[in-house]
């Protein structure tokens, strides 16, 4: 262990000499860049420690996390977020018991009704309207539900696009192409402003769900294309083999095509969900107080006026942390599927 470490260190320095200190010109460039980086980091460090006033962050932590959720009930979203975090850590570092690993997916899916129950209340908890949801809780909620709904829709769209029925094929192609040609913000506007006009009188979908549906409609088009890529890489001989075994069309889709296509599309799907997580911040413009929205409304408070750098640096950190957790989890899932299926 130690020996390989020393060897790799020596190799590292040799590599450095060979690449960035090769001649006078390279050395000057290297030193200049090092100077630039150090000046920038010293200033950043100075600002972080001495100039920045972190009161705007520290005194508002519950707001960032839960928005205007009633203070007495804030343990509910807190429980949800902490249970997601613990489950993530457990998935990454937990023991390798077979039965446990097999059922981990069910536990993950279980966090969804748990989240809904904790946020909405009812059945012993006091009910809370969705307009009180906010902060990181709302951001995570938008991400989880949008990706969860857009995955099946995306699969269906991809299958329709591959279908031999001309009408199905055309409708799905047009849908995908149109959705990919419209900017996300337009789809979100549509969801917030136009959906209520189309619904019959008396029927109402609250704003959070309208946002989730808009995200779902948009993201599913992209997911469909990712999955179509997976489907196309499955050789036709697989389908012939399944046919010759007497499996019908639906069974072939369920047992042969979807599992393989999902495995192949997994890296692309990870990208989509991380992108989706970041795109939820667009809802700040449309009046939902998710993480970015709460930042903006805190900045509108006269007490904290002008402290936008602190707030945005802090928000960037939170987004970065959550994205990193998502990426690490996805890599873990990828690796596990590769082990299980021996890297076909």
């Amino acid at each position: 262990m130690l020996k390989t470490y020393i060897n790799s260190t020596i190799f590292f320095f040799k590599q450095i000499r060979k690449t960035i200190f090769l001649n006078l010109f390279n050395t000057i460039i290297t030193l200049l860049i090092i100077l630039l980086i150090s000046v920038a980091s010293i200033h950043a460090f100075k600002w972080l420690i001495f100039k920045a006033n972190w009161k705007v962050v520290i005194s508002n932590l519950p707001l960032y996390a839960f928005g205007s959720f009633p203070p007495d009930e804030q343990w509910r979203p807190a429980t949800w977020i902490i249970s997601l975090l613990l489950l993530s850590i457990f998935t990454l570092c937990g023991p390798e018991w077979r039965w446990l690993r097999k059922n981990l997916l069910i536990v993950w899916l279980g966090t969804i009704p748990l989240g809904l129950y904790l946020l909405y209340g009812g059945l012993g908890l006091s009910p809370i309207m969705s307009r009180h949801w906010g902060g990181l809780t709302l951001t995570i909620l938008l991400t989880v539900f949008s990706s969860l709904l857009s995955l099946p829709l995306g699969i269906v769209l991809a299958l329709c696009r591959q279908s031999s029925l001309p009408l199905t094929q055309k409708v799905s192609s047009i849908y995908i192409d149109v959705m990919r040609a419209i900017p996300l913000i337009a789809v979100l506007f549509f969801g917030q402003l136009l959906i209520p006009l189309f619904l019959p009188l008396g029927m109402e979908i609250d704003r959070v769900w309208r946002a989730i549906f808009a995200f779902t409609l948009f993201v599913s088009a992209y997911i469909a294309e990712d999955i179509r890529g997976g489907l196309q890489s499955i050789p036709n001989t697989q389908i012939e083999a399944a046919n010759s075994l007497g499996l019908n069309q639906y069974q072939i889709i369920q047992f042969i095509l979807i599992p393989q296509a999902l495995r192949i599309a997994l890296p692309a799907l990870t990208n989509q969900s991380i992108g989706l997580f970041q795109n939820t911040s667009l809802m700040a413009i449309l009046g939902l107080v998710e993480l970015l929205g709460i930042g903006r409304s805190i900045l509108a408070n006269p007490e904290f006026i002008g402290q936008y750098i602190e707030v945005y640096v802090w928000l960037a950190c939170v987004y970065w942390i959550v994205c990193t957790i998502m990426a690490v989890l996805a890599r873990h899932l990828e690796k596990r599927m590769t082990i299980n299926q021996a890297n076909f």
Partner: protein
Amino acid sequence: MEPIVVAKNLTKSYTKGLRALDNVSLTVDKGKVLVVMGPSGSGKSTLIRTFNGLETFDKGEINILGIKVDSTHDERKIQKIRRRVGMVFQQFNLFPHLSILENITLAPIHVQKRRQIEAEEYGMYLLSQMGIDSHAKKYPIQLSGGEQQRVAIARALALKPELLLFDEPTSALDPERINEVLDAMRTLAEQGMTMIVVTHEIGFAKDVSDQVLFMDSGKVVETSPPNIFFSNARHERSRKFLNQLDKH
């Protein structure tokens, strides 16, 4: 003798007027082994693939296990045939995302609606027959070509078929792996399985087959018992083909 496969005047043309099948007729009786030989492009794969509906045809009729299919390609009848006819492919075509045992039990569980335990037991029995039961938990990529092909045979057998189709089952294998697959097929023939085998393996054809059907450009050139075909073929075209094979 009860015929399992009766094909009458099968014809299939491609758009350019090329004929993949040209008036092909044949009969295979229960428990018999028919070997189909011919140069590449002669239509032998196309022929064998019409028997379980993987290929359509334009004219003629086939009767498999009493189920008649004509050029309308009735999907329901073909499904019925597929449940009773197994097929083994040149490239094995195992499902890479399923374990060996899952490959074998997939169709029994979902097509024949058998219980999982029962299907697994029978699957393990078939794997031990093929001498590869120790690999049941592995995935296809972890096995050699010969082992994969034996899994493919076990998978075809799992539906307890009354007819087995082999489409060049040894052509994609390393030379030293060919025999393990041929031996498995020999055992099946001895157990009385009805088989149609597209192959270039003369030794196998000589020992195991009851009839050899020789095709060229979509036509049946001749159908003879193996002792006649390999020693004294009736047609000049067959003799030329056998000469070519011998040289390799």
